[in-house]
Structure formats: C-alpha cells, structure tokens
C-alpha cells in the first residue's frame, strides 16, 4: 500500500463522482466535470518522478494547468493526475517501457484539481546517471485534435475491454 492521496474536492459545477483505485491498492474519490482546458500554446509541461512514481519536480506550466499548488504535487504519486477515462493498460505500457530503459510516447488525458481535464502528447524518458536509472522525466506537448479524437476512441474501447 502507498500513501493515499486525499479525495478531490467536490466542484461547484455538475460533475461525475468516481472512485479511482490505483495499482498500489490505494483508492481516491475524484470528480469529472467534462470540461477541457486548452493546452498552453508554445509551452512544454514538464515533471520528474523518482523510481516509485513520486513527483520530485514540476515546472510552472504543469502547476498552471493542473490547478494544484506545487506543495500539493511534490511528494505525491504522479497518478494524482490520472483521469478516469484513461485505461490502466496505457499506464502499464508506460511503466514497463520506461522501466526497461526505453522512451515511451503516448496521448494522455489528465485530470486537473477542479475536475476539468487536458490532453497531452507525453514522452517519458528514464534519467540515466552513470549507467543507473535514478528517475523519470515526462515532457508533454500539445497534441492535434485529430490525434486526440483517435485516442478517445481507442481508450474508450480499451476501457470497455478492461471492464469486461
């Protein structure tokens, strides 16, 4: 069991309440308002984690779009951003690729503190120092609408398969 992340605050606007259960067995209540935040033009959203997926660094663009204060992010599991529409298999693929020392790319729907969301094209690279992986860096770029729509269809199918 990891340290549980506190439940999300219920937004003022209508939102679906969902209980998320993560790979480490912890659970958390989140809210999905269905509202998309536009990706900030020209920016990269950057974060780093240690080997256990605990956030060690976030840049200003990350803080701005996620809606969290930096103190609410550093030391937390990166899955604090996980959106309930994302299939578990996508993260399994991400972690197994990164842990094998390879670069991972993929489209990701992330959940903001207030229940809104944003889409990114994410790349995760292992941080190799003197031959040893010491953590991971994730850099997100703005994806095109066509790629987002393709990912939505693919992830909906994957979620359905996971729930069967």
């Amino acid at each position, binding site marked *: 069991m990891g340290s549980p992340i506190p439940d999300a605050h219920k937004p003022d606007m209508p939102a679906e309440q969902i209980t998320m259960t993560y790979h480490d067995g912890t659970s958390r209540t989140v809210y999905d308002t269905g509202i998309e935040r536009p990706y900030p033009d020209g920016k990269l959203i950057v974060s780093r984690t240690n080997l256990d997926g605990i956030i060690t660094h976030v840049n200003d663009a990350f803080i701005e779009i996620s809606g969290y204060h930096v103190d609410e992010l550093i030391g937390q599991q990166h899955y604090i951003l996980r959106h309930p529409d994302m299939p578990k298999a996508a993260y399994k693929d991400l972690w197994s690729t990164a842990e094998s020392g390879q670069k991972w790319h993929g489209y990701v729907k992330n959940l903001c503190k207030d229940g809104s969301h944003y889409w990114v094209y994410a790349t995760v690279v292992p941080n190799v120092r003197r031959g040893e992986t010491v953590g991971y860096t994730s850099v997100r770029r703005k*994806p095109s609408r066509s790629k987002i729509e393709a990912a939505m269809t693919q992830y909906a199918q994957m979620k359905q398969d996971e729930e069967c």
Partner: protein
Amino acid sequence: MTTHNMLIAPDFSPDRFAGWHMFNTLIQKRANLNMHLNIPASHAEQEQVISAGDIQIIYANPFDAATLIREQGYRAIARPIGKSDEMVIAAAANSAISRLEDIQAGATVAMADNRDVKLIGLRLLEAVDIEASDLNWDVTETYQAAARKVIKGEAQVAFFLAEIFHSFSRLTKTQLSVLIESDLADISHVLLVKEDFPDAPIFLEAILSLHNDDDGKEALAELGMPQGFEPMSEEDAEFMIDLMQTLLD
C-alpha cells in the same frame, strides 16, 4: 603562456558579435588566460573545428551540448540566467496564413541552419498535424535572409531563433506575422569545458563574477545576457539533455 581555444556556436544575432569579443577580452584579463575566440560561420564549420580538436571551451546550443557532453568529453559549467532558447514561426503579414492551422502540407519553410530551432518548430507544428515530410525546406545563410524569403512570398513561413526575430527592425517585423512563439523555459545554451581543461575553476570564477562591475555588465549587455551567468551542475545539464531527448521524436 598556453593559448586556449574558445568556440561560440554561430546561432547568435549579428548584433552580438562585438559582445563576444568584449567577453573574450575581459575573461582573458580576469582569469589571466590566453584565449583564442573561434566563431564559426555555420553549424558545419563548427563541427569541423570541434572535430579537429583542441577546443577547450564551447558556448554550445542545447542540441549540440547533448552530444558534446555525452559523447565528446565536455562538461557544462554555466548557463546564461533567464535566457532560454525559444523560437518563432512567422508568415508574411499580408499572406493568408494568420495562424498555425492555416499552414498546408507542401508549404515551404525558410530558416537558417539551426537544428534546435527546426526541432522545436516541428514539435509546435505537431499540434496542427504538420510533420517534417509535409514541408519543403529552404535553408538560408542567415535568419535575415529567411525573413526576406517570407516577405517576398518565396516561402510561406519561416522559423527563427526568437532572440534574432526580436532584434529585427520594426520595418521587417511589421511585414511579418507571428503565428507562435515557444515558451519552453528550461532549454538554454550552455558553457562547456573539456573534461581535462585545467583552468576551468579560474575561468568559471571570471564568468560568474562578470555582472559585478561596469565593464562586465557592459559586455553582458552587449551579449543580451544582462543577468550574467549561473553555475550549471552536472545534474542540471543531464536534466536538460533528458528534455531534449523527449523532443527528438
């Protein structure tokens, strides 16, 4: 006294040329080192000079820094404060292209030979489903030449190093329309020294103290780095290289 070779990556605005000479003169005086300033005219010439060896100090762009650190025995010691490498994509002000979405496959991009600018520009164009293979490339000698190509309608858009774009005359800028300017923040040029460069500590001290007096401030102002340099640790450099790796594909 031994003469050391310092190389400055060629991707700076022509306005900064005098600044690099002032910088070299001051550092030589203050660190009591003999230094020969190498300013190659192009990226190809830079590679030639470096591969010929005997370059102890390089002010490198981030893309080259990755290779120089991980494969060619250099280490980062400093970077300019608050001066990240950004790029601008612009079209002619009188053209039908007023936003990124207006760029069509088959368009010609004019730009000087700078891999960082090209890489970042292509990453920004992903958001509108344009890839490198959708574009024709017109590599010009200078960014000023790239601006002229777009203004004359010989290219639909141009990629610029942001600092150089902002140094253009008002007349040039009024004939161009900025479609996007990057705001990556974490990627900058870096000052590298060869691993076995024995005078690295005294050189670094001279660099870091430049902003402490009027002569140093003047040189830094000429370089467009008014805040001077800050030390860069091995981990800072590795982190920046990791970021660059994520942009490569």
